[in-house]
């Protein structure tokens, strides 16, 4: 439109300056009076026409400016995930699903805030699943990439690396770390996921009620995540109603678990409760089966989406009887089922991934639209007071004031399934079903 206006204006100037027209204004004035009058009339005509054209160009140009304003802006979401290190399987599957989610929402027009349309742009940064890595990733996204919000981060260690930045720069972050705990001193961190304790409670209930287990051996990495998991296990021991045989803390990066397992398995637990990265979980399964353990093994964490690859480490036979958080399409709402189709198409090898990892981002986008604002305080108010539709059939509401001292937590139901064969799982129950 702008160039059309320019063209029109240009033509007008060309007319006026002796262009390709019938009347040549540049010729010498004729002496004849009538001809003089004629020329004057034509001058006036052209001046009027020029004025109309100019006004028209201004109006059209103004329309172009308004139209330009109405075009989509970009809403930048920064996702801090591990793409290297022990938690890389989780990070890589998250990335694939988040990119699918981005495509899903952008194809449906993005989101609209006060009449302004926003398309979503995801920017990823690798936190290496460490505190230092989390800090570096946070600084990159906030200061270099200038993201509007942070989403999808997990892992107590990397989150504690970048969390102070979110408070300092007032960057609202909707995260999905089950072990990290919401705190009043980090008001801009909102968690949309079931907590570690909620997951463990559901798993213990499943083991107890459905699989007949009476005792448990906890195995956790000797880092912040493992220590928090141990604290929670001790605190809720009575509620979980299982005899605790032992807590085994393994150094991060351990690959040979024989020294731990050969002693710990002598206590004859009914099931092993693991809080370790997925590669370590696979090795523990393999090595515990070699040492003769025949019981169940529970993992209150999302499985890496590529189950076949993971089973390559653990062994197909050894991994039978392994219970973890794995996909269950029955739990999805119609919207969730639609999103899942997108993810299945974009991430064909990540079949076991549950959509709960991406729900926080969906909740944030809804909250932004409802708040009609990009201000973190306005959005936080909406997050804390509104019921949200999710990818699951059950709507979500914020809570956590009693438990964490701040209402910055939304529980998401997680599905537990058991491996029964090569790339085959059997659904056992969800958090809501197992902990009424």
């Amino acid at each position, binding site marked *: 439109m702008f160039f059309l206006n320019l063209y029109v204006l240009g033509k007008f100037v060309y007319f006026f300056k002796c262009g390709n027209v019938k009347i040549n204004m540049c010729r010498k004035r004729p002496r004849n009076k009538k001809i003089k009058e004629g020329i004057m009339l034509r001058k006036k005509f052209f001046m009027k026409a020029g004025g109309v054209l100019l006004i028209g160009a201004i109006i059209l140009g103004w329309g172009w400016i308004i139209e330009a304003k109405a075009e989509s802006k970009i809403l930048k979401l920064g996702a801090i995930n591990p793409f290297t290190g022990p938690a890389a399987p989780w990070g*890589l599957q998250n990335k694939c699903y988040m990119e699918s989610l981005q495509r899903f929402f952008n194809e449906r027009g993005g989101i609209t805030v006060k009449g302004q349309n926003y398309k979503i742009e995801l920017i990823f940064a690798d936190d290496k699943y460490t505190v230092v890595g989390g800090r570096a990733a946070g600084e990159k996204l906030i200061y270099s990439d200038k993201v509007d919000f942070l989403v999808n981060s997990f892992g107590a260690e990397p989150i504690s690396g970048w969390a102070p930045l979110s408070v300092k720069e007032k960057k609202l972050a909707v995260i999905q770390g089950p072990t990290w705990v919401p705190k009043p001193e980090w008001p801009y961190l909102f968690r949309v996921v079931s907590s570690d304790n909620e997951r463990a409670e559901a798993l213990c209930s499943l083991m107890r009620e459905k699989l007949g287990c009476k005792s448990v051996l906890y195995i956790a990495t000797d880092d912040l995540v493992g220590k928090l998991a141990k604290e929670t296990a001790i605190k809720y021991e009575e509620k979980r109603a299982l005899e605790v045989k032992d807590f085994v803390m393994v150094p991060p990066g351990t690959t040979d678990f024989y020294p731990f397992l050969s002693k710990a398995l002598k206590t004859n637990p009914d099931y092993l409760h693991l809080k370790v990265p997925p590669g370590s979980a696979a090795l523990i399964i393999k090595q515990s089966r070699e040492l003769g353990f025949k019981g169940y093994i529970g993992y209150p964490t999302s499985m890496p989406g590529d189950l076949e690859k993971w089973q390559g480490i653990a062994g197909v036979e050894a991994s039978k009887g392994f219970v973890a958080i794995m996909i269950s399409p029955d739990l999805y709402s119609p919207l969730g089922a639609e999103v899942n189709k997108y993810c299945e198409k974009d991430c064909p090898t990540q079949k076991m991934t549950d959509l709960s990892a991406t729900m926080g981002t969906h909740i944030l986008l809804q909250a932004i639209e409802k708040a009609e604002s990009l201000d973190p305080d306005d959005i936080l108010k909406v997050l804390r007071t509104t019921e949200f539709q999710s990818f699951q059939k059950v709507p979500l509401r914020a809570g956590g004031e009693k438990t964490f001292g701040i209402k910055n937590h939304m529980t998401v139901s997680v599905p537990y399934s058991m491996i029964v064969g090569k790339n085959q799982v059997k659904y056992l129950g969800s958090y809501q079903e197992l902990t009424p």
Partner: protein
Amino acid sequence: MTGFLQLFLNCLVLSANYILLAVGLTLIFGILRTLNFAHGSLYIVGAYIVYALFKMMGVNYFLAMVAAIIGVAGLGIFLEATVLFPMTKQKSFLTSLNAILGVSMVIEGALAFIFLGEDVTIGSVVTGTVSIFGATLSVERILVVILCGLVMLGVYVWIQKTKQGIAIRALAENPRVANMQGISTRFIRFLVIAISSTVAGVAGAIITPLFYLNPYMGGHLVFKALVIVAVGGMGSVEGSILAGLLIGFIEGIGLAYIGPIAEALSFVIIIAIFLFRPRGLLGVEYEFH
């Protein structure tokens, strides 16, 4: 009795892993007088070659292992020609150290780019467990211990009995006199790096089925190997074997009965060794290149 035997076997497997890594490193240090921080990366490259050929292309495991050995030996020779030997002309030790660390990072980055950062495995080549007086060990682990023993024996016999081995020992003891006797420093350097890389490649190939792989494991492994080389005595193959056994057993027993603090305990013992024997258990005087 069963418990003690199980513990002993666990520690033996742990020690075998450490010794395989440490011996290659100590060979390089003994002759090249260089701390090869890229040694862990060579181990990982060997493992990934086996993964790529056996798992991704369906090549026979033993052929893949041979290819891994040749590939890693070739890479080691390439590193010697392009990085390690040119760095000997630098006056500062830090320059060569930085160069080798850089090589290690390049290899890690290349592997992460090709294979991504996630954990992979070639899977178990042999399955099954064996019960020895009540103690259980997988067949894979028994093979690792046997192969480790064979590799150590082979390296030891080669160093002690062959002409090239004698030449290597002569060069390690006194390079100038060795040169005067007609021993080519350049050739011996290439030979040592090839053997050392071969041992790293073998270690990567045989240990891979036991655990998983990711491109960033090399750093942790080379750190462990360096500690063993230092404790055993820089440049001493026998010392590395002894230190590997010592640290493997301390860690195995400590981790089973004390927990994660056992790693700290093993360092306390290492410090005590250095206080009483600064050159290591079987070490000789050395200077860095």
